[in-house]
């Protein structure tokens, strides 16, 4: 059976909060997963005393475990793929504003966190 890395929605009405979980593909969304490897809070927040209006999103992630699960063939969903690609665990699937040359140049920084994680 396929093992997926996906999001499980918790939180409350209008206040989403996700666990990033590794689970069998056919199990219910919020059932007990194989492992919880992180959380994702999709609600953008400002910093205090920051007048620029810049917002950020908080994610907690066990990068080692994520890399392991990807390594043994767990399939991330699109959203999780996007998140994992941000920390260089996966190649970005979709980069609308980049030429192929630029895409190649992104590989070294993608490899950098991998080396630190391995060390």
């Amino acid at each position, binding site marked *: 059976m396929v093992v997926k890395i996906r999001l*499980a929605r*918790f*939180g409350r009405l209008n206040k989403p*909060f996700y*666990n*990033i979980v590794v689970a069998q593909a056919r199990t219910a969304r919020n059932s*007990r*997963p194989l*492992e*919880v*490897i*992180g*959380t994702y809070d999709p609600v*953008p927040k400002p910093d*205090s005393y920051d007048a620029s209006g*810049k*917002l*950020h*999103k*908080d*994610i*907690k*992630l*066990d*990068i080692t*475990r994520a890399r392991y699960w990807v390594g043994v063939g767990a399939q991330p969903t699109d959203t999780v793929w996007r*998140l994992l690609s*941000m*920390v260089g665990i996966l190649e970005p699937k979709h980069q609308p504003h980049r030429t192929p040359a630029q895409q190649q140049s992104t590989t070294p920084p993608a490899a950098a*966190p991998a080396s630190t994680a391995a060390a």
Partner: protein
Amino acid sequence: MPPRIHSSGCPPLLLNCVPESISSSCSSSLAVRSSSRPLAWMTAQTQSPRCANNFSTTAPRGLNKVQRKMREWIKGPGQQFAEPTGEGKPNYLMGSTDRPFPINPLFKSQPVLSDGAREKIYSAVMERGMPLKAVSARYSVDMRRVAAVVRMKEVERQWEASGKPFAKPYAKAIQGMLPIQHLGPDEPAFEPINDIHVHSYTMQQVFQPAAESKHFTRVDAAKAFGEHILPADEKMRIPELIQLERDLELGIEPADANKKFLEATRESEKAFAATKEAQLQREEDRKTRVESGRFEFRFERINAGAVGHDGRARGAVGWRYGVPFNDRKRGVVKIPTKVE
């Protein structure tokens, strides 16, 4: 509802928009007609004219004793409280200088820092780079207050730079109504700076047998109250002051002792700043910031294995499974408890 008669007093058309002259004439005619009523009522009537009373045949309800006394006081001796004294002094009841509540002598309106004093503190910290502890000891102002003054002055500067207007008239009026204290060599100490919190363990009497020959110090006393109770020397906010006094006792020149004190406070501040810095650095090291077009994504590295033997450990990451969630229970605080 009592029957209402449209008397000739006010034409009904104008009821909603009575000019002052008309309404006052109404009330004056009323006053003439009802001259048998007590005086306080009449004066009250002229102050707040109510034309509607003119059309009612029921007698208006008079004031009771307390209400009458109140009106008399407000119009009489109470008038002195309507406006500030204008002499930069408080204007409390009973002519007191520091007691806003007449029957509670245990609450005092203590002076606040003057504008000049705040400026002094700000320049000492930000321009001369003095450590907070030294500024606090020098001006006898609590360390937390020193920090707060500097913090708000800093915001004030930002406002000034961005052209945001201050509430200047308000600030001036308030400063004119409060007891104010300046900072200077001739001024009395602003507030005690070495307060220590009275721990509830130390509020009871403890029977501790000790040999008569024992040199029973504050440290021993703290131990007697409880294992984790700190002695007063360690709870002092500025313990360097004790060393300063000791040095002076030993006969070291005051200038040298002061220099030593300044050095010690600077060192302690540096150490504190270093620990804070290290803590922030550690937190930052755990984070990876990724800039997308709209938002910054902050990835914090965590350990997914720290879930305890049954997977329900308290500090574990994320929403737990098989654990009741208490956030909506009665008695649980549902609003933020801190803002960072």
